Structures are given as structure tokens and as C-alpha cells.
């Protein structure tokens, strides 16, 4: 009996030789319980050892295996072949990012932006460890929890045309993470962080396309984080007009 197969059209790009990426077709065995990443691993292990991509946990939590699958950003370890029958399946590097090689993109830009939004707890005074934990009720935890679920997989950036058009845009995940700390009852860094989120290249660039949230595999809803930061930013702005000496300390 002939084995069932499915075809993957994989983008290849060799930095030293190619000027443009090109597609290469591979036919792999079809298995009901295989994800796209399994198919790529099959190619790498048995067909073409030069195929280049990132992966690690294959359980949707390390955030390294994001690629475009039929034009939509996906974690390839969570994208089942069976959902793309009968194929072919287009596998491309995440959109809008510079491509290093094949399916590997450069995310240094995001790493810099993440640092800029100061994703850490800022306090005026640190309580000593001997005094125990900062108290935080389940409701206070709930207030920011959703925005702390980001695995930095970059799918939202690959879905956001605004990022494609203006790469300076801080972008969905970084803003969501900055906003997460603004919402944390233990944090006192709003006055430092919010001005960065509310820069011209920050939340105001977002036109609420909303695709970032649609593709997010972890339900983070960065679009909501951004719009809520806009509301906060607008409030601050009007307050600063009404009370020029700063209603906020």
C-alpha cells in the first residue's frame, strides 16, 4: 500500500548565495498526529540536513517555532497537518521580520523594544525579603494575568501590518508586557513606563487592525492592552493640560 503523503512548500534563503527567498517543495509522509514541525524535522533528519528553522519545546510554550503557515502566523508545533489537507502547505518565515536564513528570522529588534518598555517591577521602596511577599489578592492577580502569558513568539508582529509598514512601532507584545507591569498591584513604575508606551512610535501607531490578538496562541490580547494604554495616555494628556503641574505624582 502506498504511504499517504503531503507536500510542503518551504521557503529557502541562503544569505551568502541568494538575493531573494525561493520556495522548495518537499513531500513527506502524512500522519494524523503530526504537526508541521514534525514534518520539518522529518525533512531535516532524512531528506535535507540544510533546512534551517528554530524549535525546542514542541509543546507551545517556548515560543521559538513561529512561522507563516499558508500565510497565517502559527506555532508550527501546534499546527496539525490534518488541518491543511490535502495540501500543499506553504511554510514561510514570519512576515515583516528580516530573514537570517530559510525559516529563521531576526528578532533583535523586539529584544531591544522589550527592554525599552521596562518589563520589571519598579518600586519606590523595596520591602525586605524577611518581611515576606507583597500581598496580592486573586482579583489583583487576575487584573494583569492575561498579559503576563506572552511567550514572545512574535506571531503578533508577523500579523500586524503597521509593524510591517513602520518597523519603529514598538508593537503588540512589547506594549502588552509593559502594560502588564502597569497593571500589577506591586508596581509603582507607571510614571516611567507609560510615557514610553505613549510615545509617538508607541500605542498611537496602532490602528487597531486587531490581527495581533486574532493570531496570539496564548490569548494575550495585545490589541486590548494597546487600546487601554491609549485611553490611559489620552487621560494623562488631557489631565496634564487641565492641571499643568501634574495631577499625577
Amino acid at each position: 500500500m502506498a504511504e499517504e503523503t503531503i507536500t510542503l512548500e518551504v521557503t529557502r534563503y541562503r544569505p551568502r548565495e541568494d538575493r531573494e527567498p525561493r520556495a522548495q517543495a518537499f513531500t513527506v509522509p502524512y500522519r494524523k498526529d503530526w504537526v508541521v514541525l514534525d514534518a520539518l524535522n522529518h525533512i531535516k533528519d532524512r531528506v535535507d540536513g540544510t533546512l534551517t528553522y528554530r524549535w525546542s519545546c514542541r509543546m507551545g510554550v517556548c515560543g521559538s517555532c513561529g512561522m507563516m503557515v499558508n500565510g497565517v502566523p502559527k506555532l508550527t508545533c501546534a499546527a496539525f497537518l490534518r488541518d491543511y489537507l490535502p495540501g500543499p502547505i506553504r511554510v514561510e518565515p514570519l512576515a515583516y521580520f528580516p530573514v537570517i536564513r530559510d525559516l529563521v528570522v531576526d528578532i533583535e529588534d523586539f529584544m531591544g523594544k522589550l527592554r525599552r518598555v521596562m518589563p520589571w517591577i519598579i518600586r519606590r521602596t523595596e520591602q525586605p525579603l524577611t518581611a515576606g511577599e507583597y500581598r496580592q489578592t486573586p482579583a489583583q492577580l487576575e487584573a494583569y494575568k492575561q498579559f503576563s502569558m506572552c511567550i514572545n513568539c512574535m506571531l503578533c508582529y508577523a500579523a500586524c501590518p503597521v509593524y510591517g509598514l513602520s518597523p519603529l512601532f514598538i508593537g503588540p507584545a512589547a506594549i502588552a508586557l509593559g502594560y502588564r507591569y502597569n497593571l500589577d498591584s506591586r508596581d509603582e513604575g507607571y510614571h516611567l513606563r507609560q510615557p514610553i508606551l505613549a510615545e509617538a512610535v508607541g500605542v498611537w501607531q496602532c490602528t487597531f487592525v486587531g490581527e495581533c490578538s486574532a493570531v496570539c496562541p496564548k490569548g494575550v490580547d495585545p490589541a486590548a492592552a494597546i487600546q487601554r494604554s491609549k485611553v490611559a495616555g489620552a487621560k494623562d494628556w488631557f489631565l496634564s493640560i487641565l492641571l499643568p503641574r501634574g495631577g499625577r505624582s
Partner: protein
Amino acid sequence: MSTRKTSEPFWWGLFSVGGVVAAFLVPVHLFIHGLAVPLGWIAFPHARMLALVGQPLVKVYLFVLIALPLYHWAHRFRFVLEDLGLHALRAPIAVGCYGSAVAGTVGTLWVLLRL
């Protein structure tokens, strides 16, 4: 850390308010004034129109209805133009769009106050 002052929040604020007004009020008015009255489903004689717009409250209502969504338009149209690749012209586009909305506001005021 120094904050760059930007006027974005101001325009965005007007955009949002305009969007709310447009969402709640525009469809029904579009139906009445754009379709129902011209097609004769509803009569809307001149006398009635004058009587209505003569009332100060209605004037305020009309001002809100017409002027605010203009900012909603200006903001969106500005970004549509940018999204279509006119990035190099960001500044003039913004001035043009918001400028038109301001002009529209002044115009609306002028029309309403003259009545």
C-alpha cells in the same frame, strides 16, 4: 526620563469620541436624510426643519453629530493614506486631514450660528 511631547493623544481622543458618535447616531440619520426623506417615505417639510434647528439644544446636537465624526474621519483617513505607502508624506498628510476636520468644525459652527 524625558517624555517626548506628542499631540497624538489629543487627536486620538477626538477620534474616539467621534467614532462613538458616528457609531450610535450616524446610521439612523443616514437612513432618514439620505434615503427615507429623498425617497418620500418620510415627509420632512421646510417649516419643520426650521423649527427644529431653531432650538438651541438641537443646534448643539447637530454640532456634535456633524463635527465630531469629522475627527474620526480625519484620523482614519490619515492612517489609510499612510498604510497605502505614503509614509514619506506623513507630516503633510496629518496636517491636511486634521486641518480639514478643523475647517469642517468651523464651517458647521458658522452654519448653525447663522440660523
